[in-house]
């Protein structure tokens, strides 16, 4: 699956360093997962995060191949949506493939911004 290989490898590296914990295979996520529609377009949950400045900065920090795969998935999904079709069931996103590749970077950006705000406001470390 060309659209997921690098992302999965990257997420495995993140999981090894303890940055992310689970995928959509546990708890509430597991229950909600089959009810969601994004999996039918072959998207991951992190693909759907609305873009703002923070998210854009986090996207800038993605490794090149992970970013390109995300672009591929989004383009394919837009295509499908405009043709009012979905992927065949074999190609739907599986729960274990729904890795959280972008959230750690978003957290990092938010933490950095908070650190700057704390220092500038005088709440010293």
């Amino acid at each position, binding site marked *: 699956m060309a659209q997921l290989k690098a992302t999965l490898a990257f997420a495995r590296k993140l999981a090894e360093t303890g940055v992310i914990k689970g995928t959509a295979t546990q708890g509430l996520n597991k229950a909600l997962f089959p009810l969601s529609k994004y999996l039918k377009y072959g998207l991951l949950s992190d693909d759907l995060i609305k873009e703002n400045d923070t998210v854009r900065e986090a996207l*800038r*920090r993605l*490794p090149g191949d992970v970013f390109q795969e995300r672009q591929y998935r989004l383009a394919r999904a837009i295509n499908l949506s405009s043709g009012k079709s979905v992927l065949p069931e074999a190609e739907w996103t599986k729960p274990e493939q729904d890795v959280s590749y972008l959230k750690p970077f978003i957290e990092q950006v938010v933490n*950095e911004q908070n*650190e*700057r705000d704390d*220092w500038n406001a005088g709440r*010293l*470390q």
Partner: protein
Amino acid sequence: MMSSLSLRARSNLLSAMPKRFASSLSASKMQESNKQNKESIKMTKLDNGILVASLENSSPISRVAAVLNTGSRDESHAEQGSSHALRVFSNLATRNFSSFGITRNLDQIGAQLSISSTRENTTYLLESVRNNISRGVDILSEIVSRPELRHWEIDDAKSRLEFELEVYEQQPELKIVDMIHKASFKNSLSNSIYAPRFNVPNLKSELLSGFRQKNFTSNRLTLIGLGVDHDDLIRFADQFRLSTASSTRQAARFISSELREENLDDLVHVAIAAEGVGQSNKEALASAVASHAFGSVYNRIKYSNGASRLSRSVLQLAKESAGVTSFNVNYSDTGLFGFHLIGSTNDIGNLAKGLYQELSKVATSGFSNEEINRAKNSLKTSLANSLDSSQGFIEAFTKGHDHVNVEEVLKSVDAVQSNDVNAFVKRVASSKHSLAAIGNLSELPRLEELRV
């Protein structure tokens, strides 16, 4: 945070005034020091290979220097420029501090962190008020042992690296030093301390981490503390966790070759060098005396051409402004001894030929005793001056643990024999030379033509 460099392992000669800070902590100590009751250096070698050395110098500023015995000479061909990159990128995020956090925390405790590297050593120096030194060391240890080298931070900081290269390329006096090393050594010491342009795109996170993994090892780390308690420093050493691999260093091999860079600059820089001696060689001091006897940058009178041997002979051949000095560098296993000529396009050929005539004159008849005494005095002054400053002390300690005792250093300079100095010069004159030149070289003969 400054990113500074030292081209040769030499002292900061601009700190001419001896600095003595009277500290409120040590008012009583000042009285005692009048009786020459100086503290001595305490050294401990830890199990992981780190050498810890401390000296109480009664200063209100504490200094901790993490000196790594690695530099541009340890770069492989693919890694060229890694030590420059690590020097520029040393303020980027570490595992527990962000780049912003490093700057702000250091500002908050009133500390300064600087990094300077030579071909053989990289020094991370932290200077801070005594009370805040442990917080400063937290940050210093992070930068030395746990930098994250995130790829986007490196991309953002690349422009700083390129700016340094642009500034470097406009200074022929810096380029000539790297060029003479490139012309004189086949490997290791031929690497420039600046990244070569062709390799800048390759200086990415993985390459730099690989270089660090191989070369930033515990057994190459020396922690020097000035104004720091020795036991405290041993505790600080625990925070510097580096790879415990043992690293070998390539031996540098001298070669005679010529490196000429032509452009239309009317001010031509030429360097001529022969193989010198290493730091621990018994001729090391003789080489330094020889350089001072010829005339070096250390014994120049400001704004004058001076009365050195080279000024009185070679410089007289110049019709337009010119400068001639000798230089001497002692690395760990070898060294470089030579001359640096600066002259106009039309003069440079005569200067170079005149230099060789003067060199053979000294080789045959040697320096007079008066010249040698004068050279010894200026060498003693420059060594004592450098040991007066903290940075000079740290550099000297890195070269040799016995290089820091001022009385012993002065005595060993006095013990240098004229015969040794003259024998050294004789050897330099008859051995293989290498040449580097940059500028309008239309009147500069080739090395082969100069040596007849």
